[in-house]
């Protein structure tokens, strides 16, 4: 894995593969190399905060004390709703336009329920932090969305509908819409009214109108985010465990990265079982004299289990190698303990980046 010269590291993979701890360990490793690093996480269990020795992570990066590093380590936990609110405040031409959106009933009730809002706010925050001169490197722990598309499409998602001509139709008062933009739209609108009810249509219309002042800002921001994700100083690191579903997800995501022309920086396979050095039968025979047949048999069963898992893991890694064209993925063995403090992160970091990191 080569992270030299990278300014933005996006850590992606399916849920439950150790993405958050991997992000934190990478950030710690880079800070150990003297960089000023901020890790942005979406860890809802606050486990990362605990591991980093912080009471709580806020929506702004906070300096991690107690990490013995040459550089600086900061951490923050993304609050999607708050980030969204702040984004609106920032992009609105004036205070009143911001208040119109923030106070809108549709916005308040439904913005949190929207698929992809977390992804969008994550990249929006990333964009903001990348212009912050306090940090050399940003490590982004992506939301646990099954679908990688949500993340890559985030910049387009919110601006797609802000297409000028169509939006002007929506923004026009309902009754006038037919005359302004032609009969088809008018019919569509009246039918829509029948489906949704007039109240909802009116509310939506107010909502879109209140957003109209922000369109240019949104569009510029989305373009900036897109450029940032495709930049040479940006890289995507894929994390997976050797289990079937995450492996398929990693292969799928890698394909998406390639199609979108995004930079792929490396693969981390967590929780890998090492193959046993001896056969269960041999172990049983060897240990029976000192442990007795019964207990030696149980010990041998444990080895047999590990052998099965080690075989599965080796096959998964081979498949990933082939599919992703990665010669040497970073393989992290199954650790005896959950990573729950800086010491644990330091251990994981050594697996990820080598002893000298």
């Amino acid at each position, binding site marked *: 894995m080569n992270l030299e010269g990278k300014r933005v590291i996006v850590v992606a993979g399916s849920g439950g593969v150790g993405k958050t701890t991997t992000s934190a360990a990478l950030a710690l490793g880079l800070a150990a190399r003297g960089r000023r690093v901020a890790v942005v996480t979406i860890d*809802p269990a606050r486990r990362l905060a605990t591991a980093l020795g912080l009471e709580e992570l806020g929506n702004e990066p906070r300096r991690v004390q107690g990490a013995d590093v040459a550089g600086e380590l900061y951490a923050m936990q993304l609050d999607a709703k708050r980030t969204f609110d702040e984004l609106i405040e920032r992009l609105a031409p004036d205070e009143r336009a911001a208040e119109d959106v923030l106070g809108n009933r549709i916005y308040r009730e439904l913005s949190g*329920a929207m698929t992809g809002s977390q992804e969008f706010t994550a990249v929006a925050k990333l964009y903001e932090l990348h212009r912050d001169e306090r940090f050399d490197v940003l490590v982004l722990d992506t939301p646990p969305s099954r679908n990688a598309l949500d993340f890559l499409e985030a910049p387009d998602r919110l601006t797609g*509908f802000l297409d000028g001509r169509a939006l002007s139709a929506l923004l026009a008062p309902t009754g006038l819409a037919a005359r302004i933009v032609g009969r088809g739209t008018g019919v569509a609108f009246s*039918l829509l009214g029948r489906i949704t009810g007039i109240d909802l249509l009116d509310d939506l219309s107010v909502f879109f109108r209140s957003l109209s002042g922000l369109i240019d800002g949104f569009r510029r921001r989305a373009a900036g985010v897109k450029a940032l994700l495709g930049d040479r100083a940006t890289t995507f690191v894929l994390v997976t465990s050797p289990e079937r*579903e995450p492996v398929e997800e990693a292969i799928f995501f890698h394909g998406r990265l390639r199609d979108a022309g995004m930079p792929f920086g490396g693969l981390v396979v967590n929780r890998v079982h090492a193959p046993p050095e001896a056969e269960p039968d041999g172990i049983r025979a060897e240990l029976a004299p000192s442990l007795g047949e019964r207990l030696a048999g*149980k010990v041998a069963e*444990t080895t047999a289990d590990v052998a099965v898992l080690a075989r599965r893991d080796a096959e998964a890694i081979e498949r990933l190698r082939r599919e992703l064209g990665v010669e040497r993925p970073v393989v992290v063995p199954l650790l005896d303990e959950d990573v729950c403090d800086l010491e644990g992160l330091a251990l994981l970091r050594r697996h990820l980046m080598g002893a000298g990191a």
Partner: protein
Amino acid sequence: MKGLLDHRLLVVTGKGGVGKTTVAAAIGLAASRRGRRTMVAEVARRTDVAGVLDAAHAGGGAAEREIAPGLFHLSVDPERAMAEYLRDQLPPAAAGVLNRSRVFGLLAAATPGLRELLTVGKLWELAQLDRRTPGADPYDLVIVDAPATGHGVAVLNAPQAFAGAAHSGPVARQARIIQATLSDPDVTAIVAVARAEQLAVTETLALQDALRESLGAELDAIVVNALEPDRFTPAEARRLATHDPHPAIERALAAHARARRQRAQLARLTRGTGHRPLRLHAHALATPDLHALADELAPQLP
């Protein structure tokens, strides 16, 4: 008490990576073996259930399809659900106009929460005895492979949020009907899948709180997946610990420590929920065989 499989709608949720999809499919297989005409529906563009059961069936999934005797699969697509909804609500010509209208498409895509509402609406439709889809047979049981915990609650919440935002009108009315179905414990049961790990247990307890708070709903069952074999008695473990160092014994002691930690988390989950979790071991070893999981699950189903 009503049996888990006697509900019409079974929502299976859990933290990412706990094997939620596999467990949903295994429950579906167990139900279909009991003669229930069962649908396992996935949301959010997933088509994993079919793949878990039969790799040849992976992908596709936008149409209802029988993947094992009495077991059906569908990957719910919001756009398709929208087209169906319009066909059901409007005269054919008018539905066609809307389905082709670019403005309508943009508006629908941009309306926050509409995709989620349409997804839940389709699940609701699948669970109706008298289905709106012309010529469609009813299912005895619809199992939903819901998105991971946090998002799962958001999807379940969508009708309520939408009904609140829309106030009045047909969509609000529809959303309230769906909401009533979801919150009726006789009709809908919620199953949480977890692993016996600290984080997964914590999230399951948080899910329980979130369900109570936002929907007034309770968890009906908890499935703990991928339990490792608990082989050694405390006395045996002590004996191993005092034995001369040997890699196989180290492995055995590490496995024992993991099994102990799992048992402690299982106890924590039982205390925190008042449920006796259903236990699955088969998943701990390599690639799960769905039939083996269904065999293990069937006798435990309440």
